[in-house]
Every structure is written in structure tokens, then in C-alpha cells.
């Protein structure tokens, strides 16, 4: 569905590759995780997959980038809006502010797409239910918590019924409660709807649970790809600054220890 072939990208007035010869084929319906240290190119790849590179950020590109076999350069953001949805890190910035209640805020994207009113109402209710924010419908989107705002942002995109949902570290600015709520919403999405989901995320435990496939980036290059099991458990992840899940971490510590724990206290200590 989205295909990159030796795709490279430079932000304006920079010498350093933001993306360096990336070849990647994302089939319809896949749940893809992107991991990498800060500055590895995760956000830039998210922007490329959703058309913001090259349509929002100027700069230079090489190689191929296509959506549904159409070169991305031939599409524009107006046309892509109902097709690919992008969710960002900062919830505050994603609330358009052009509407006064949560329901109206979700409607904003549908109004722009020209969705008829009756259908709009159904889609809004469905999206709110999916991320569990029905009780916020009449509240101001500025009067709710960060985690709730992020779910409003996700619902606003989901209501547009995109075929691809791209999430760029959607929980990085949220507290543990907010993070859990957002991932609960995503897991519901995976089980109820067949859309392509691409998520860049540091919280590897969650990726391991959801993703069909994980890719690892470093310095704008694709360094590893495969099943979450294969990629996230590899030694390479430590070198790339990705780290590993807390479970792998505990297990690794256990493997390193000379003696196996025998009491509950020891086990707790060893696994922590």
C-alpha cells in the first residue's frame, strides 16, 4: 500500500540525511511498529508515510515513495486527508480549537471533507466509542486531561475513516494513566477494524503486544526489520539505543545471575 524504494530525504538547508535510502513495503492491514533512538528518523518517516514529506516540509528527496502505486509527489495534502491520518506527540497542538465541544472538534475534519450531516453524527459516535470518550462529548476539548486530549485527537482522525493511521509517539507526553488509555483504545482498534496502523513508539512492551512487524531506525537508515519477537529481542537494539522491553530486561538480568532465585523475595529482586 505504501512503498518506499531507496528513499532519501534532507530537510531544507541541512546536509545530514533525515532518511537514508529506505526500502520498505507496507501491505494493507499491517500493524507496523517503528523503533529507534531520538533523532533516528522516526518522526520524519512518519511524515513521509503520511505525505507531509514532501508536501509540508520542503527539502530534497531521492528515490521512490508511493501511496497505492501513485507517487506521493503527485498527491496533495487535501486529497490525502481522508486517506492517511497522522497523530502527533503533543495533544494540545492537535486540538484545532476551531470548535467548542469535543463532539464538534471531532466533526471539524468531517466538515472539511464534506461528509453529510447524518453520516457525520454516526461516525462521531462510533469514533468516540472506540476510544472511550463518549462522556466528554459536550465538554470543551481544552478542559480535559492530556490523555483525554490525545484520545480526542485519535478519535478526530479515526472518524475520518482513513485507510492508514500513522501515530508519532502518541504517548510520549502522557502520564502512565493517559498512556494506558491510549493503548487500550489502539488495541480495541486493532481487534475491531482492519486498517493499516503505523506507530513510532519508545514503549516497546506495547509494540511487542500489538505489532505484526517492527522496524528499527538509526541515523535515518533502516537497520532491522522483522517480527516484534525477532527485532526487539536482538542484541542490536541495545547498540542502536532502542533498549529492550522491561520483560527482556528482567529475563536478561536473570540469565546473568549466578544463582536462580528460590524465595519470592529473591525472585522479585531478580526480576525487577
Amino acid at each position: 500500500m505504501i512503498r518506499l524504494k531507496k528513499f532519501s530525504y534532507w530537510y531544507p538547508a541541512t546536509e545530514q540525511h533525515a532518511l537514508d535510502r529506505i526500502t520498505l513495503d507496507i501491505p494493507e492491514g499491517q500493524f507496523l511498529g517503528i523503533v529507534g533512538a531520538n533523532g533516528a528518523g522516526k518522526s520524519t518517516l512518519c511524515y513521509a508515510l503520511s505525505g507531509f514529506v514532501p508536501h509540508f516540509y520542503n527539502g530534497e528527496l531521492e528515490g521512490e515513495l508511493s501511496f497505492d502505486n501513485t507517487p506521493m509527489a503527485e498527491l496533495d495534502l487535501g486529497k490525502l486527508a481522508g486517506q492517511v491520518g497522522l497523530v502527533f506527540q503533543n495533544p494540545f497542538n492537535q486540538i484545532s480549537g476551531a470548535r467548542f465541544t469535543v463532539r464538534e472538534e471531532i466533526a471539524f475534519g468531517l466538515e472539511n471533507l464534506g461528509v453529510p450531516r447524518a453520516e457525520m453524527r454516526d461516525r462521531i459516535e462510533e469514533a468516540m466509542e472506540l476510544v472511550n470518550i463518549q462522556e466528554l462529548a459536550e465538554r470543551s476539548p481544552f478542559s480535559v486531561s492530556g490523555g483525554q486530549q490525545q484520545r480526542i485527537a485519535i478519535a478526530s482522525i479515526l472518524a475520518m475513516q482513513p485507510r492508514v493511521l500513522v501515530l508519532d509517539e502518541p504517548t510520549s507526553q502522557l502520564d502512565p494513566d493517559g498512556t494506558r488509555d491510549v493503548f487500550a483504545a489502539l488495541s480495541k482498534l486493532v481487534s475491531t477494524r482492519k486498517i493499516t496502523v503505523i506507530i513510532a513508539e519508545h514503549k516497546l512492551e506495547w509494540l511487542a503486544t500489538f505489532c505484526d512487524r517492527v522496524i528499527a531506525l538509526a541515523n535515518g537508515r533502516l537497520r532491522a526489520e522483522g517480527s516484534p519477537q525477532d527485532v526487539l529481542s536482538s542484541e542490536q537494539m541495545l547498540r542502536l539505543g532502542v533498549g529492550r522491553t522491561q520483560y527482556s530486561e528482567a529475563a536478561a538480568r536473570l540469565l546473568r545471575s549466578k544463582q536462580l532465585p528460590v524465595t519470592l523475595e529473591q525472585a522479585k529482586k531478580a526480576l525487577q
Partner: protein
Amino acid sequence: MNSFRKEFTTLSITLIAVGIALNLALGTVVLRLGLPLYLDSIGTVLVGALVGPWAGAATGFLSNLVWTLTGLYPQAFAWAGVAAIIGALAGAFGRSGWLNSIGKAALAGLITGVVSAVLSAPIATYVFGGVVGAGTDALVAAFRAAGLDALMSNVAQGTFSDPLDKLVTFVVVWSLLLALPAREKARFGNLPATSKERAPRGATRRPAGKTTQKTTKKTARRR
């Protein structure tokens, strides 16, 4: 027309909204401080400087519309035209490089302040009966007592407060522009690069005129 369109991309429209919000937020907060300054046009001058005269004018005009629409300061709309001119001036000063040095920025602020005072006075005189309904009316009274007529008293009052306010505003914007990464400034495209920023970092790295790049620029303009 082309330069007009270029100043109203989605990116600059968003910046204009943020600029207006800054005007209102700082304007109300500074009001509570009881300073002899308004500082309610930092957003206007910043947007003008970054994006250009049209965007600056729109920020100024719409700020006053929003002051009216919120009901916090309903009379503001009477001065919307003056606010637009302040924004346009900021755009012109920004484009011509005056906001790259503190001295020129201060001078630009003074000039803008005088223009603002001269344009505001007739509005206060003929629409509001020679007052603005604020503490500065004491100055108007003093000038009237000294023998100036209604219009000149308002000009004099304006010249007392506006140039200082705009000087401070422009110097603040100068310092903000100094702190803003070159990449951010380049994105909006009004300010000329300073000599330091102009350093040819990899400018010749790859041949210009690649087809991909051209498409990008075209789309960007349409946005």
C-alpha cells in the same frame, strides 16, 4: 496577488491564530501589571516580521476583531485598521532587514509608534469624543489644559505612549527572532538571512533543479 497568497499558507494561517492569541494573552496580563505599556501587539509584529506585511496586517486586524468578539474590549474594532498598518509595517521592516539589529529594530519601533499615534488620534477624537476610556485620558486632559485642541491633544497623548510601547515591542521581537532557530525563520520566508545564517552550508551539495524538488515547491505554494 502572488505574494498575498504566499503569506496565507496553512502554516502561516496557524501562526496568525497563535499570534492573535499571544496578543490577547499578553495584552490582558500586562494590563493587570499596571505598566505604562500595552504590549498587546507582540504577536502582530512577530507574525509580520516572520511572514510578511499581508500576514502582519491580517494579524493586527483580526486581533482587534477578536478583542471585540470576545467582548473583553468591544471598542477595539474601531482601531482594527491601525492595528493592520502596524502589522504591515512590521512585515516591511522585517523584510528589509531592520529587525536583524537591535538599534534598527528600536528605530523601527519608534517610527511605527509615531505612525500609530497619528492614525489613532482622529479615531479617539471623532468616534470616542476625544478620549479612550483609560488612564491615559489624564494626559489628554493635561494637553487640553495646556491649550491644545481635541485632535492635537490626542495626537500628543498617543506620541507619549505609543512610540515607547512599540519600541519595547519591536525590541522584544528582535530578541525573540534572535533566539528562534534559523530553520524556523526560513520556513516562513520573510526575513532575510543574517550573514551568519547565510553561510553556504552544503548549498552546492546536490545539483539544483531536480524534478522532485520542483514539484515540492509548486505544491507548497498552492497550499
